[in-house]
């Protein structure tokens, strides 16, 4: 152990240099030192925490005695702070100050007359050549400037409230409701769904990815869900349900469910908290023969200590990979993925094994056999009770070839043996629970997609605005961005394409400030304003340290279409 090694460890601990982790862990002595240093930091932290608790105690005790005085002080303090914050706003650092664009009205109108001339301004994100042609061609068919933005399409979905039912939105949002999710009486529920996945959808709906507390978020998709009974009344949710947001591009760690609250003209988000009072107690949560997809404790294998979904997935992958053996065949086997679904019952026995998406008859059988060889598991539990849990595993085959030493006869014999073992279970399962899986059966292919690698899945106890988010992981020091010379009432959005984030602000005066924005990210500014009832927009890449001037153009439906296309292309580049 030496000074150099300690430096490496400190660097890893304090600035999270992940590349150092392997180097450290490869050396047993260093690894111990890392563990000790970590523990010591936590120990030292205890001192600080005790101080903080002591401080809190002192304050609350004092608080009782001098509440009146403190109240008085607080009010005056608040006034002073308010006064200063106004002053500060006035004198805010003019570092990012955008050049003012005091355009007289005539000029604006001139712009609208120029309608589709695409000025080759460097400040606008560039259209590809084909796009330009298409836009110009369409532009010749003269069109009027839009007066309002189109609203997002409403999808109407029918839910069978008497059964476990799975519904999908057009963008792939997945909703899994247990039987009687909206009370026992209702037969059919109409769900109204609006989905917002692309930057453009979020942008033109004036949505924002900001929490009620003012923190910025990266979104993995948002939606608005409303429920109505057959008679058209609002339907009330009485059970938790599961909601899946399809993973677009690469899966991102730390995504969580956020509920939205409509505020002013936008929606602000708050992380979902499992509130006890929202679980209906008079109706037992666990109903015999109900099948869950998400439970508090997922099933696990004997000997594995973690019961979360992630480690379960890893464990399944490992065990299945070990169990897979392909018998000898002359056939060329395809590359691809077989989706196998099964249920781990209350005793931990795997049953109801079925192929959800087939790849090749032989590989399907190989996959099923691999599942059959899995040992009995520790069942999943919900509220302390063991329950049935449905699980889907994707099994990928690439360059698979038959094993010369493993004859098809041997494979068949083994399969026969395993089938016999499972026969009793499978038969009982089929008759008893087949109707439970009916709805899944109808959506065979779609259901195959509800694997945990392709969805961000959450349990939810509410409907309304929902958002799959994580805190905005933008890099760099946080600095304020100031934009000047706006006309009152215009909306400005700060957009990050790398991490789907959009912050929306309405200009109350000529100045807008985006507070505490990480400065090592690339952003774009998009603004919409209304002039004489017509809509104008401006869009440009934001460059730090440079003056920002927004050049507005009339927004027509053709233009809107082209913009959406452009944004989609840009977004694809980041997925």
């Amino acid at each position, binding site marked *: 152990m030496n*000074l150099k090694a300690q430096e490496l460890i400190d660097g890893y601990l304090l600035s999270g240099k992940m590349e150092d982790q392997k180097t450290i862990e490869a050396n047993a002595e260093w690894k111990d030192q890392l563990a000790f240093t970590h523990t010591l930091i*936590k120990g030292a932290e205890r001192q600080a925490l005790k101080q903080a608790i002591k401080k809190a105690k002192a304050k609350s005790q004092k608080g009782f005695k001098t509440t009146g005085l403190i109240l008085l002080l607080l009010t005056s303090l608040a006034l002073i702070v308010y006064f200063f914050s106004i002053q500060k706003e006035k004198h805010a650092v003019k570092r990012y100050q955008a050049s003012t664009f005091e355009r007289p009205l005539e000029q604006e109108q001139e712009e609208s007359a120029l309608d589709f001339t695409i000025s080759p301004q460097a400040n606008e994100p560039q259209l590809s050549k084909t796009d330009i042609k298409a836009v110009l061609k369409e532009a010749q068919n003269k069109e009027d400037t839009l007066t309002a933005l189109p609203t997002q399409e409403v999808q109407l979905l029918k839910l069978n409230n008497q059964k476990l039912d799975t519904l999908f939105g057009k963008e792939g949002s997945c909703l899994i409701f247990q039987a009687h999710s909206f009370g026992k009486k209702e037969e059919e529920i109409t769900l109204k769904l609006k989905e917002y996945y692309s930057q453009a959808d979020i942008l033109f709906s004036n949505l924002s990815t900001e929490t009620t507390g003012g923190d910025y978020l990266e979104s993995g998709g948002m939606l608005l869900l409303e429920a109505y009974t057959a008679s058209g009344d609002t339907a009330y949710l009485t059970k938790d349900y599961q909601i899946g947001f399809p993973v677009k591009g690469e899966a991102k760690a730390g995504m969580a469910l956020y509920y939205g609250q409509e505020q002013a003209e936008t929606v602000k988000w708050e992380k979902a908290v499992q509130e006890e009072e929202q679980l209906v107690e008079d109706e037992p949560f666990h109903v015999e023969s109900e099948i869950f997809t998400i439970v508090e404790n997922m099933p696990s294998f004997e000997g594995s200590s973690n019961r979360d979904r992630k480690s379960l997935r890893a464990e399944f992958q490992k065990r299945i990979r070990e169990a897979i053996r392909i018998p000898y065949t002359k056939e060329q086997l395809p590359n691809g993925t077989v989706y196998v679904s099964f249920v781990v019952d209350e005793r931990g026995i795997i049953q109801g094994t079925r192929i959800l998406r087939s790849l090749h008859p032989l590989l399907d059988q190989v996959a099923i056999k691999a599942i059959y060889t899995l040992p009995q598991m520790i069942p999943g539990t919900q509220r302390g009770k063991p329950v049935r849990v449905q699980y889907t595993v994707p099994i990928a085959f690439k360059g698979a070839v038959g094993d010369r030493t493993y004859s098809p006869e041997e494979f068949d014999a083994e399969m026969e043996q395993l089938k016999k073992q499972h026969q009793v279970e499978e038969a009982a399962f089929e008759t008893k629970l087949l109707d439970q899986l009916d709805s899944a059966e109808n959506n065979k292919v779609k259901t195959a997609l509800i694997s945990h690698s392709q969805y961000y899945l959450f349990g939810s106890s509410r409907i309304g605005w929902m958002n799959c988010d994580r805190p905005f992981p933008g890099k760099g020091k946080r600095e304020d961005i100031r934009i000047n010379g706006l006309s009152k009432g215009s909306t400005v959005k700060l957009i990050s394409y790398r991490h789907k984030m959009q912050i929306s602000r309405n200009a109350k005066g000529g100045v807008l400030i985006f507070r505490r924005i990480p400065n090592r990210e690339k952003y774009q500014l998009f603004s919409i304003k209304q002039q004489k009832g017509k809509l104008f927009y401006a869009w440009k890449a934001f460059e730090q340290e440079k003056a920002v001037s927004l050049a507005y153009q009339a927004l027509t439906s053709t233009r809107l279409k082209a913009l959406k296309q452009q944004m989609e292309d840009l977004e694809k580049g980041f997925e």
Partner: protein
Amino acid sequence: MKDQKIIDYFKRHKDSQAFRLLLDYFPQVESYIKAQGGSTADAEDLFQEALIVLYRKVQKEDFSLKAKLSTFLIAVVKYQWWDLRRKASKEAQKAAKWTAEEALLAEEVEQLMLKEQRYMRAESAFEKLGKKCQRLLRLFYLERLPMERIAQKLSLRSAKVAKNQKYKCLKQAQVHYQKEEER
């Protein structure tokens, strides 16, 4: 809603403010411990630990709230009390009475407490160090100041001296810690 407020305070590193709101739960803890034959001082100690463990939980990256904070605090207190009694008398103690909500947390609480007990030993090892050593390590690891600033603050000749000193302090702490572990 109150829970969310507390969590927000923690996330924004306003720990004192979060603790202040959490102090409201102390009477609940006190009455439980007294009913079990403990004193107010016992309750205060256990409650302080529960607050620290809660802080750790909230700081975790994958933190999500599965139960009310008050439920979590009570669960930690119950676990500690049960653990203390178990260690005091060798006969097997009856398991603490957990409500269904608390029982769901039991496993997590146990994990967190086992870790926290290690941190407690590290804390006493840390406290055995000289005042200057403690300050140096605090400035470096908790306040994350660069060595140059630390050298200035502690009036050491250079960053290099501070670095060497820090290493020595750490080694010393390790000796103390190992003694704690052996006890």
